[in-house]
């Protein structure tokens, strides 16, 4: 598999042959991205069935260490990527949001499997959030129930490609005017899950009902 972004050197820039081993010419973006793509540390965070395949992807047969992703940290403070591996339930959601809010940038979110992408087979359930993308910005969706470890790694390659194309100025966590792009307000566990960002909508929906009653 050829990947034109893989190298650090800028293409079409001729470095004299005798110093090619010692000198590299690149842009800041590319240097950043090159560093990031090979050291994405996942959060050690499993939700359901997919988590087992995520663990399997870390073990000897698949060995995600080859992608620089073997360092799974249970603390969000040392993680770059959250693999949402399994069904996101309403009861669990505040904990997930809290973890995401604590992650330092860069922070990537991968929706692994059907449940994390859309609620999956459990979507109709009363305690299931219909996809983590309702709350967090998802970078890569991996279909499958559960995705096999190889499918997960295909997703990781996809994420690396995305990282390659990023620019420091434009990534969501450094962009100007979006100071709180990293912060998602905590949802409230009321009679049902209440998205704090949509509080006004819920208030408006409740008001006319009272009048008609």
């Amino acid at each position, binding site marked *: 598999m050829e990947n034109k972004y893989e190298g650090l050197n800028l293409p079409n820039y001729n470095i004299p042959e005798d110093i090619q081993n010692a000198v590299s010419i690149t842009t800041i973006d590319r240097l950043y991205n090159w560093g990031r793509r090979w050291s994405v540390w996942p959060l050690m965070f499993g939700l359901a069935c997919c988590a087992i395949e995520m663990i399997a992807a870390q073990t000897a047969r698949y060995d995600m260490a080859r992608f620089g992703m073997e360092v799974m940290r249970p603390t969000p403070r040392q993680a770059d990527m959250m693999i949402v591996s399994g069904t996101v339930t309403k009861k669990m959601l505040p904990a997930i949001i809290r973890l995401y809010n604590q992650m330092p940038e860069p922070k990537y979110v991968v929706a692994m499997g059907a449940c994390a992408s859309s609620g999956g087979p459990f979507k109709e359930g*009363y305690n299931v959030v219909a996809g983590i993308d309702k709350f967090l910005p998802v970078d890569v969706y991996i279909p499958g129930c559960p995705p096999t470890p190889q499918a997960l790694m295909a997703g990781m390659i996809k994420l690396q490609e995305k990282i390659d194309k990023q620019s420091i100025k434009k990534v969501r966590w450094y962009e100007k005017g979006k100071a709180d792009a990293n912060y998602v307000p905590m949802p409230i566990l009321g009679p049902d899950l209440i998205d704090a960002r949509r509080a006004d909508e819920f208030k408006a929906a409740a008001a006319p009902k009272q009048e008609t009653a």
Partner: protein
Amino acid sequence: MTAPAPVSTVDLVARFPEFVSADSRPAYSGFVVKKENLVEVATALRDEFGFDLLSSLTGADYLAENKMEVVYHVHRTTGGPGVVFKTQAERTDPVEVPSLVGVWAGADFQEREAWDLLGIKFVGHPDLRRILMWEGFEGHPLRKDWQEAFYEEDTKPFKSRWPEGSHVYAEFKNPFRDNVKLPEGFSLEKYQPETEDQLYFSLERDSSKKIDGETQELGERMVINMGPHHPSTHGVLRVAVELNGETITSLKPVLGYLHRNHEKIGERNTFLQIMPYTDRLDYFNSMINNFGYAITVEKLMKIPVAERAEYIRVIMAELSRIQNHFIFIGMLINDLGAMYTPSLYAFEERELVLDIFEAVAGARMMCNYFRFGGVVRDIPDDAMRKIKDLVFDRLPAKTDEMERFLNENEVLVARLKNVHVLNADEAIRNSVTGPCLRAAGVPYDIRRADPYSIYDRFDFDVAVRYNGDMYDNYLIRFDEIRQSLRILEQALKQIPEGPINSQKPQYQVRVPAGEAYGRVESPKGELGFYVVSNGKPNPYRYHVRAPSFVNLTALETMCKGEKIADFVALLAMFDIVMGEVDR
């Protein structure tokens, strides 16, 4: 306690003629007990008839008859079939039924679940809080008149899918464009979310220091919360622990972080559609989950299973058990702090077993392999060769290697030996089943105690150990792997040729009305399915008695007085899988 009467003479009607009657509905069995006398009857069942193990407790909502029913399945740890008895109450909100926690402590979590999901209030329960949903959640979801936000129709298949099916996200049909349903007249300004005071009160009340009557100085007590995000709680389990120094004085598991509404969705599915959902209960052992569900529905349908399929089922179930126990060993060592190498070795064997599942069933984890009356397809020749390679050649050698690798390791022995898990009495009282019960010296294995499928044809021993400490709990897994290999060797030699399903393949099976409780020995304990059919294509009531969930009832008993450092290892002993705990 008098000597237990043989099963055939369990006649509760003769014993309590005034308030027990036989369940006379067609294809129902057992006894109906008046709820006022429930505790008396239950005590007699336990003490006079010897039914010491409460297997399953669940409710059923009979909306048309305006009745709520609580269904109890009890068994003897000496073996034999069980007894089912029920109690009925008028369908009010809440329904009140006396609690049986005093008779079988194992009723604790199951009663809380019935309260949470069905709104059956168990009078006399010491700690009746919601267990799967959060406090403050509106309604009791398993009641037949309760509908969720993404409700489409009562039963599948939905009419909107065919013939005029244009893809619409479920969100677009909902007023909030999301999976949210708020009660009428709900006002966000006035709303105060429920606090977790009740949880902490219950911790304090059950604190062992208080029970001893000792005075407790303020500040000595510390409450810590482990999870739901914790590397060693095997998923999204949260445990609130009260500590005195390093010693655990009280402990409450908080469940429901992976509550995926298995039963509500199951009651909407057709009988066949539930099969792939059962894969996702205990996601390490989808084959065994399939097994349990298939034999339950076959009981209802009264159909035989093709001879060859029986053998294939046993082969798949035992392979599944082996890989599960390998993972248990690997993960236990991980939890003890020896990061990775042993679990990597364990995962290698698991991968090879999963290769077989992939070749036979099509998927590594979510096999969806069983059908009513048989299995989906025959084992392909190359997969059969692989199974034989593993069973006769590789797995025995690797089990030996694993034992050589770990068993005598001084650090491991020091951590595990003489750390008490459960004794026989505690285990039975709390309805603990599976390896934890057997490691406490009770040789109770459903494959022997109440044989299902063709397990009575095989020569194998029930693994049992007697110390009930962590080391025994660990070693018994190796014993079970060896016994499973024994069964596999016999099954592979005896397997006959022939059809793999006794029925014609059909996507909508006819299941006559009635109730059935089927149970299998999963690697975690007794996996039971309670299915009620009313003759329609969908089950009327579908309940899963998950071993991990019921085993957790004993967690507090097990951990009280132990050091917090041992907690993670103690929890690992139950080998819980959250998909099954929360369903």
